[in-house]
């Protein structure tokens, strides 16, 4: 998890004295090589459970025609069985598999998946296959066909899904269908005196009370007449008579086009939507690969590229200034409190690290209240009713965000610097003083460089953390005040990560997963570049000292 706390182990147990803490060796028992009965049992239960889950999952996935996941599941389950049923060299894998499995799926896998989404137009209006889109367009805006015959129907139920049992008024044939399955002929229906079907094998007929209880569901029920969405749907208002409904646009499978009642033709324009000649698109569209479009759009579309540049610049500024300010203040405090004759240091210490123990997401909200321009404590009480726009003026908001992050972050740096200061060899300082250096000189020329070397890895980690410091920004300002030159919900204090979050969440427009993923790939690259360069530099630093 990404958290600022990068702890190392506390004092390790030192060899032999701790030996006695372990359970005493069991000498009298027979050799228990490998596994005992309990272990064998646990293994059987766990593996059996996993395999059972996998089989159940595969059945469902085959039903949904998810072929790639089926293959992955089979391979992975097979591999896990192979690992745990074998002996000898597979031992390390037995210990690594559980954690690595989660790591591969939910950390590595999702990053790769992001990479894939970045090259699609996935998002609101483009989130399914083309067939889904055709079905959904055909279903939208249904209107009753004027000369539709009246179909006598009975509402039936199968596995919790409602269906219509239809008697064709012309042929007298009995058919049944649900919202997902078009009408199919029923073999041996139950019929009443008039020849209207009242029941079918495998289906439960709803009683009048059931129908009344589920009136809303019954009225919403839309049963396709055939596989071709163009042929229309059956709907009923009173649970006894249904009429044919057809969409205002009809799909023609032969030409792959939609035709509206006024004659407008909508074609597959190649952008994942049916588009008419004058550029109107039917919604929803479907998901297609768009190559580098999202990346190109991020850098050339004026609505996105301008804000993106400013947000990137601010993200770097925020991360650098946050590290610098928290480090400076933490170090200053550490120097102040690191004095052999000072009393009460213990109490100061506990009090100044309190902000660090306070949950970060709450800090942002609490400070948002404190800094509220109209009612906040700072303006009303500390500044005697002033009207300082702490969170609404672009530059002041940036300052406020940095101030709050300083409050949150300096205790960490204080702890780190205290530890580092106390571990500096005292002879160096003594030697410098003998040579006539004053306290400032000792600090500048000796303590600071040594401190920087020992804390450099943590400073880099802190940079990477602040680069993506979502909670502080989002809870304090939501990235606002908003830029006025874009329709996107992006503002002066937005970091890249909050901008991506808002794009993916559809604040200020539809959700655009493709663009959001493309931008998060950019963040990945930026963080990686900065970290690599920084680690190289610290290597160089180490060699100097």
């Amino acid at each position: 998890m990404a958290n600022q706390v990068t702890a190392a182990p506390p004092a390790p147990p030192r060899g032999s004295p701790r030996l006695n803490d372990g359970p005493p060796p069991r000498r009298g028992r027979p050799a228990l090589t490998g596994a005992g009965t309990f272990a064998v049992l646990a293994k059987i239960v766990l593996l059996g459970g996993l395999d059972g889950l996998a089989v159940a999952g595969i059945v469902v996935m085959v039903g949904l025609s998810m072929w790639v996941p089926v293959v992955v599941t089979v391979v992975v389950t097979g591999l896990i069985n192979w690992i745990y049923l074998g002996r000898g060299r597979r031992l390390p894998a037995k210990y690594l598999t559980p954690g690595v499995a989660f790591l591969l799926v939910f950390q590595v896998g999702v990053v790769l998946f992001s990479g894939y989404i970045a090259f699609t137009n996935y998002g609101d209006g483009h989130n399914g296959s083309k067939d889904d889109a055709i079905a959904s367009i055909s279903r939208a805006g249904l209107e009753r066909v004027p000369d539709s015959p009246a179909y006598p129907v009975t509402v039936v139920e199968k596995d919790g899904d409602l269906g219509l049992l239809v008697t064709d008024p012309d042929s007298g044939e009995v058919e049944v269908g649900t919202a997902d399955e078009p009408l199919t002929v029923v073999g041996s229906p139950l019929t009443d005196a008039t020849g209207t079907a009242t029941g079918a094998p495998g289906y439960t007929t709803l009683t009048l009370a059931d129908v009344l209880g589920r009136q809303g569901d019954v009225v919403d029920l839309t049963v396709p007449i055939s596989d071709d969405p163009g042929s229309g749907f059956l709907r009923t208002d009173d649970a006894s008579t249904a009429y044919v409904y057809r969409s205002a646009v009809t799909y023609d499978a032969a030409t792959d086009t939609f035709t509206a009642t006024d004659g407008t033709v909508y074609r597959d324009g190649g952008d994942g939507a049916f588009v008419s000649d004058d550029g109107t698109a039917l919604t929803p569209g479907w998901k297609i690969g768009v190559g580098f479009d999202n990346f190109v759009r991020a850098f050339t579309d004026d609505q996105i590229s301008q804000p993106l540049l400013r947000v990137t610049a601010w993200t770097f500024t925020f991360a650098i200034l946050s590290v610098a300010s928290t480090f400076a203040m933490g170090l200053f405090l550490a120097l102040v409190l690191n004095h052999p004759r000072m009393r009460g240091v213990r109490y100061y210490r506990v009090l100044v690290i309190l902000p660090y123990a306070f949950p970060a997401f709450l800090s942002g909200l609490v400070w948002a209240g404190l800094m509220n321009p109209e009612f906040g404590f700072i303006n009303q009480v500390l500044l005697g009713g002033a009207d300082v726009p702490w969170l609404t003026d672009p530059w002041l908001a940036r300052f406020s965000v940095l101030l709050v992050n300083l409050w949150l972050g300096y205790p960490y740096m204080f702890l780190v610097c205290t530890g580092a200061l106390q571990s500096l060899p005292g002879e160096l300082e003594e030697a410098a003083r003998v040579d006539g250096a004053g306290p400032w000189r000792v600090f500048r020329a000796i303590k600071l460089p040594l401190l920087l070397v020992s804390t450099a890895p943590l400073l880099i980690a802190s940079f990477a953390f602040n680069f993506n410091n979502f909670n502080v920004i989002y809870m304090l300002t939501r990235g606002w005040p908003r830029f006025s030159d874009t329709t996107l919900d992006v503002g002066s204090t937005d970091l890249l990560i909050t901008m991506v979050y808002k794009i993916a969440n559809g604040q200020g427009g539809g959700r655009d997963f493709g663009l959001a993923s493309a931008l998060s790939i950019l963040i990945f690259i930026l963080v990686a570049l900065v970290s690599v360069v920084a680690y190289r530099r610290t290597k160089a630093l180490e060699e100097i000292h």
Partner: protein
Amino acid sequence: MATTEVTARPSGPAGPTPPPSSTGRARRPFSLGRWFRDTGWRHLVALVLVVFAVFPLLYVLSASFNPGGSLVGSNQLFSTIDLSNYVDLFTDPSQPFGRWFVNTLVIASVTAVATVFLGALAAYAFSRMRFRGRRVGLLSLMLVQMFPQFLAFVAIFLLLSSIGDVFPALGLGTHLGLIMVYLGGALGVNTYLMYGYFSTVPVSIDEAAKIDGAGHARIFFTIVLRLVAPILAVVGLLSFIATSGEYVIASLVLTDPQSQTLAVGLYMFVSQAFSNNWAIFAAGAVLSAVPVMVVFLLLQKYIVGGLTAGSVK
């Protein structure tokens, strides 16, 4: 701060600022000026910083006791002490605070325990066994954990929604699904931390047990795990704190108010009507922060020891 005082003259041990010795102090009479130059100003600086650190926390505490309820009413610190906000917090059905609290506790505890377990398994393998790909494995763990998982939240959201098609109990909106996502980050820095600690437990202990006939699983569960208990506690605690404050993924996965965590629920609650909900939010904030802060301060020694040990090579 100290003034710059660079003297080119070489000076002996009795230079401008001789290192003070405790024996010398007793002989000198007390002088306020010297006390201030020596440690007094340090107390002053520390006090200023303590005020900076503590005052927002006192403000929330006072707001939570203020029955007025609004933001502007919270500005008179500790004018009244009243528990009505706490009562409202648990009784008003528009914000199921009790549920949020329990949800957060459950999600964060399960994640913490499972993280410790998965991490310990991996660390045991890395520290006690020699196998092909061990070095590469450790290095790639270091690399992978540099990228925060929540950057890929779009993919996580879509992945969970398709998992939910197959196993509804693991899909969007479920706690199990969210926990699984969090466990994706179980290895990474934790394993690295634990690996270092596991390696300090002498291998001779394992060998002794092996000679006595214990298998690898028995050695792991009954011997090694007990010896590394402190690091397990630290990793579990850090994971608990990180998970309970996580917002990005939790806000995408948990959309039903009844199933949300404190971070998501409280944020949604206070951002609906910022000023009006302020006092109740403050009460919620105090209650959510107290457990974490208490544990943090109790285990401060471990965490701080860990932090500083990590910073100093």
